[in-house]
């Protein structure tokens, strides 16, 4: 019972914050709302015995990636930006309709995939250390070593790319942050 309450609580916060995120004018507020949503999702992760990944969510995702977002926002000094121009109500409504259809389709697919016997029950009890650091790490470094190494290369590529892209031309000036 408690689980269910926590679930609903976290779920509502997650979805609500997400919705608020996309409606903000101020990008800083958007980032903060996203942070809230992600923290709520971390709670859900924990409920699913994904302790390691949940911690990683907070540390890496919110702690690094979204902070990076904040940095960039500050750097670009966007507060004064106007997003003028009208977005027609029709356009917005149709787009929302599209997303609703998407949602419906996904639910339908999930219904097909997650076969009825299993829906509605949690699976048999899992091992004590399911989702713990040791378990995930041992899988990571044993069966998935190759993708792990590739991921590091990927990160390297991303770093190089980001640095090259963001490098300043000598002739250009930037506003002071």
């Amino acid at each position, binding site marked *: 019972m408690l689980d269910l309450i926590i679930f609903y609580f976290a779920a509502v916060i997650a979805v609500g914050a997400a919705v608020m995120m996309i409606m903000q004018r101020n990008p800083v507020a958007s980032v903060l709302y996203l942070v809230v949503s992600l923290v709520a999702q971390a709670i859900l992760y924990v409920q699913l015995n994904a302790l390691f990944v949940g911690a990683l969510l907070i540390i890496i995702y919110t702690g690094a990636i979204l902070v990076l977002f904040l940095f960039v926002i500050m750097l670009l000094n966007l507060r004064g930006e106007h997003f003028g121009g009208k977005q027609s109500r029709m356009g917005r409504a149709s787009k929302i309709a*599209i997303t609703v259809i*998407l949602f419906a389709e996904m639910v339908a697919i999930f219904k*097909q995939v997650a076969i009825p016997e299993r829906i509605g029950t949690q699976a048999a009890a899992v091992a004590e250390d399911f989702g713990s650091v040791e378990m995930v790490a041992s899988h990571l470094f044993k069966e998935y070593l190759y993708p792990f190494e590739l991921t590091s290369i990927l990160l390297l590529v991303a770093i190089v790319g980001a640095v090259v892209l963001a490098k300043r031309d000598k002739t250009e000036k930037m506003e002071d942050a």
Partner: protein
Amino acid sequence: MEQPLYLIPLFPLIGFLLNGLLLGRLGKKTISFIACTSVGLSFLFGMKFFFDLLSLPETARIIENVFFTWIPAGQFHVNVAFLLDPLSAVMVLVVSGVSFIIHIYSIGYMHDDAGYGRYFTYLNLFVFSMLMLVLADNYLLMFVGWEGVGLCSYLLIGFWFEKKSASDAGKKAFIVNRIGDFGFLLGMFIIFWQTGSLDFKTALDPAVAHSVFAVGGGMITAATLLMFLGATGKSAQIPLYVWLPDAMEGPTPVSALIHAATMVTAGVYMIARSNVLYMMAPATMAVVAIVGVATAIFAGSIALAQNDIKRVLAYSTVSQLGYMFTACGVAAFSAGIFHLMTHAFFKALLFLGSGSVIHAMAGQQDMRYMGGLKKRMPITFWTFLIATLAITGIPGLSGFFSKDEILWKSFSSDYGSIWIWLIGLITAGMTAFYMFRLVFLTFYGEERMDSHTREHLHESPKVMTVPLSILAVLSVIGGYVGIPHILGGDNRFEKFLEPVMKGVHHSVEGEHALASAAHDGSTELILMVGSVVLVALFIYLAYHFYIKNIAAAGKLRQRFSGLHKIIYGKYFVDELYNAVIVQPLVVGSKFLWKIFDVLIIDGFINGMAVIIGDMSTGLRPAQSGILRTYTTIFLVGVIVILGIVLIFG
């Protein structure tokens, strides 16, 4: 026997190439030297091979020369190969000899013309094509020559192409000829289809022909009729003669060479060559004879009323060609070739003489403005008179022997009839009348030209009068190779050509002749005398109207003014053709052009382009460049795919 026969057409070809390629850089003397010597060499080689031919026994008089294999396409095998037998020997000598004489004449006639080099180039090309035509040993090579002379005719008729009437006449000649050529081709197709070959040796072998065609059957009649259609085009018979009078727009030596002596005789040659086939189709023979004699009298009647000296001669040519076809139609092929030869001499002389007159008259061709030229141009006058006597058939001259033989054969032959003879006789009278009318109007009587022209009247230079004299001599003696038996001669011409005329059953004729020799002999003599008397009568009539009592001619014309209008207007055949054939074609093609081509076809193509353009304009907004539109559509695509998976998955 194998001899290098290709030498005969080779020299005019070289002359054509040299003159044609180096036109701009050669002087007049060089051009004429190249042109004349090339034809002269053809003649000399022709003579040489002719004597070689004579040295062979009568039954084996064939010289061949395969130059190279042209089309080796399975069963269809055609060579560029030449055949010299008595028939082609006669043609080669006539063509090259008369061409040579006319080349010499042209040096004088065309002296002041700007297109001097071009003229001789075309003339050499013509001689080459004509020699190819007569020397070919198969129908396809003959057709090449046939088309070649047609092309040269077009080029030379329209020689002064800046003059619209000249270029129109050239076009008319070529187009009308094409209609005939179509018939010729179809005839050739049938021959090939049935006999499997276009070689004369195979297709015209009596054994082969009889095994493949049924005598008098549809196939052979069709083939021979179609080839005759080609002959009517090339040799200006009804219905395709209309180009020849207009062809007088070309220079007079061209008229002499092409439209009197050589090209127009190609049709006669072709039929004589194919005598085996024609003898197997009596229906066609009747058609040939009837068309020939009808053309003869038809053209002769038109010539009675013409005022242009060259027109009279043109219609006279059509009429005389009619005689030649009549001869072929009554199975007297060698008589037709005989007349071809004598006609070449005197008709070329007549044209060249008229050219001399026109030259002296500074371009005037209307006989009503001539007269009294006898004193001013004696050589021209005497040679012209000799030619006129020859064409009217005065005894002793060449025309008498050849024309009389045709008249006799049309009377006596199994294929002839008394009506053909009668019409031929009347035509002979007409010929006498209009030819002497021409002579009297041009050379006798008062001088009707204006004083300016009169001052410039002069006899033509030697380079023009010497050829006239040579042709005059030939017009006199040319007939003595064919003196008929009746008059004590041997008719060596007919005997010479006998081996070629395999279709004609000489044995039958021989028996026939032997059986009633006496009876036929006297009939022939009577007919001969009769025609001479008629001719003399018409000459007297011409004398009466144009020398003694000129006013009478005018009165006669007024009395029969309606008839005169019709004859003078050439029976309005040209107008008829124009209205019935040409105008509908022009209207039809205008329709096809304006409506079908421009509206429908162009419209369709352009319409397709416009449609595609509109489609692209319609689709272009999709490339709006707005990022969000792209992402939205992306998402919609994902939804569609998911939907498909849901429904069909």
